[in-house]
């Protein structure tokens, strides 16, 4: 009896403290959220819309980017323009998924490539993140309006590519050194199975969209939006198909956005989706009559308004990645072949293309036989027939 009375007495004494603590906790939580809400979000950017003009492409150079020593395998290049030149990033090592695979960079200035330098490895990423990284994969780069270069690198957890995560790195010195900002949170499944491959798309407000894709059995494309400081603002899925990946995204007008995807289904055609509300929601469209035998493609919109697509064409004597074809379109629906920028025999590989327009110059890189990264430049002229 005495014990229960003491317990009651204690409870009576502690209850007001508990209530006060609860009130303080709730107040602290509301204050923390209120502080975030008072920082107003910038208005969404508007894409410029212009009528397409005829573009003429003239090849001005063709070369292989110098490879680091003792790296027989190279793949998945990406480009980012920097003042006075262009940066290329790709992964290289003894073999795909090998423990020695690292992301390398090289700089294009005055018509020549610099020697490559190491940007990210399993060790450097693991050290920065505080946990292990098993393998390194595709890099994707973007130069923000403030000149900082943002690099997104696939870094896997425990398992194969299905355990992929995406690390966000930032360089303030035009790619010479990178600092790890964070592992992007993209999936509730131990944050795995999301990868990058295709180039980001700039927005009028200085932000950009990073194309992503989920890949673990079912494959679907996604995009993550960033503000001009490189902070993520939203993430979402593109369409409802379950066998498309690596979206190449183009903003056609202030509201219309189109995405073309690698096809992992038996249809083996370039898949497409459209958004009529600036990327907020997406509608799947019928596939284009252009081949995609599970190979990556690139699409950009030239400043003149026309769109260029690089994809692996598969003809009668081709294997899935032996011909890299350049096509052009005014509206994104009807495409006309310009020509094959690489055409090999059965078994050759010219794949994973990337394009970047700098002024009146078009830069193209792609994987050359899984051994190196090839680079072509074209001069763009407008107003004439191609």
């Amino acid at each position, binding site marked *: 009896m005495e014990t229960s009375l003491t317990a009651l007495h204690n409870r009576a004494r502690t*209850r007001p403290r*508990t*209530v006060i603590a*609860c*009130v303080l*906790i*709730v107040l*602290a*939580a*509301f204050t*923390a*959220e209120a502080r*975030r*809400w008072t920082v107003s*979000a910038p208005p969404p950017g508007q894409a410029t819309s212009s009528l397409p003009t005829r573009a003429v492409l003239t090849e001005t150079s063709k070369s292989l980017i110098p490879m680091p020593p003792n790296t027989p395998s190279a793949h998945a290049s990406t480009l980012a323009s920097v003042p006075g030149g262009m940066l290329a990033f790709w992964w290289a090592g003894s073999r795909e998924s090998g423990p020695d695979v690292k992301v390398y960079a090289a700089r294009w200035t005055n018509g020549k490539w610099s020697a490559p330098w190491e940007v990210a490895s399993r060790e450097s990423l*693991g*050290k*920065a*993140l*505080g*946990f*292990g*990284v*098993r393998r390194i994969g595709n890099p994707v780069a973007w130069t923000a309006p403030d000149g900082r270069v943002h690099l997104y690198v696939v870094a896997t*957890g*425990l398992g194969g590519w299905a355990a992929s*995560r995406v690390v966000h790195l930032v360089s303030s010195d035009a790619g010479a050194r990178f600092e*790890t*900002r*964070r*592992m992007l*949170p993209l*999936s*509730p*499944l*131990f*944050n*795995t199975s999301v990868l990058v491959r295709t180039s980001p798309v700039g927005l009028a407000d200085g932000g950009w969209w990073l194309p992503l894709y*989920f890949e*673990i*059995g*079912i*494959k*679907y494309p996604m995009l993550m939006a960033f503000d001009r400081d490189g*902070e*993520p*603002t*939203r*993430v*979402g*899925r593109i*369409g*409802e198909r*379950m066998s498309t990946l690596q979206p190449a995204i183009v903003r056609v007008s202030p509201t219309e956005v189109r995405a073309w995807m690698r096809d992992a289904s038996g249809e083996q055609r370039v898949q497409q989706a459209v958004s009529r509300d600036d990327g907020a929601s997406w509608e799947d469209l019928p596939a284009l009559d252009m081949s995609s035998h599970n190979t990556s493609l690139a699409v950009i919109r030239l400043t003149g308004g026309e769109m260029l697509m690089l994809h692996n064409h598969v003809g009668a004597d081709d294997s899935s990645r032996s011909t890299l074809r350049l096509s052009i379109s005014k509206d994104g629906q009807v495409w006309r072949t310009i020509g094959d920028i690489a055409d090999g025999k059965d078994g050759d590989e010219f794949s994973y293309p990337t394009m970047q327009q700098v002024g009146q110059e078009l830069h193209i890189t792609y994987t050359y036989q899984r051994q190196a990264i090839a680079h072509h430049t074209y001069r763009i002229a407008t107003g004439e027939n191609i």
Partner: protein
Amino acid sequence: MSLPDLAFQIVYGRLAWGIVLLALVAALIPSGWRHGRHVLGAAAAGLALLMALPGSLSPAWGLGLGFQYPSGLLVGCCLLGLHARWRKEPVPVMMSVSLAAPLAIAGAALYLDAIGLLAQGYYYAAFGPVGAPLLALLGVAGCALAIARGKGRGHALVLLGALLLYTLLRLPSGNLWDAIVDPLLWAWAVVALVRHGVRRHVRSRRRDGEAEPGLAPELQPTDLQPLFAAGGIEHLSSSKEQVSGKQ
């Protein structure tokens, strides 16, 4: 979309995985053992040292590689178990139905959506700048009210902890889902639900067997009274927890 600082995530990863590992180690210590508290203290100190080791020497390195970060709720459940063990109180190994059922259902929808079978964007919605934080604030207020009124304190405390971690620091990932569920916790909830279901089925079978011709029919209502009185799964679960705690 507001994401946590990487430095906070690294600290959280080490602390959180340390607590989860300690709970697993503690589960190996026989309950009621005279030296249990000393062993638990020593295990906590040892794990703290281990977690603080640099790079791949720390278990957080490998756990992060495989599982990224545990949810705040999983860490909270582990802390609750450790607290009970420290106080030499019965530790419920399995999760109660009132916690396991919503976790299992919500987690199933979330993971079906994440693997692409649904296309609802449940995970992405929990990055929202208004909806998710507002939901978390309501949860904080609800949990605080429950604690102040002395109702369901255990669950309310761990949920409050997970929601505060999200609201104040946006840990572990900036996504509200990641604060309250992860695949490990979800698997635990599913196993707990299955176990509850099996136990319930076995009990009802046993009762049916007892109620066969050998028993007087008038005994049946009295025998089943606790079941009717329970008014559902939730009450049943807490009685099972006590049973499992005694084992």
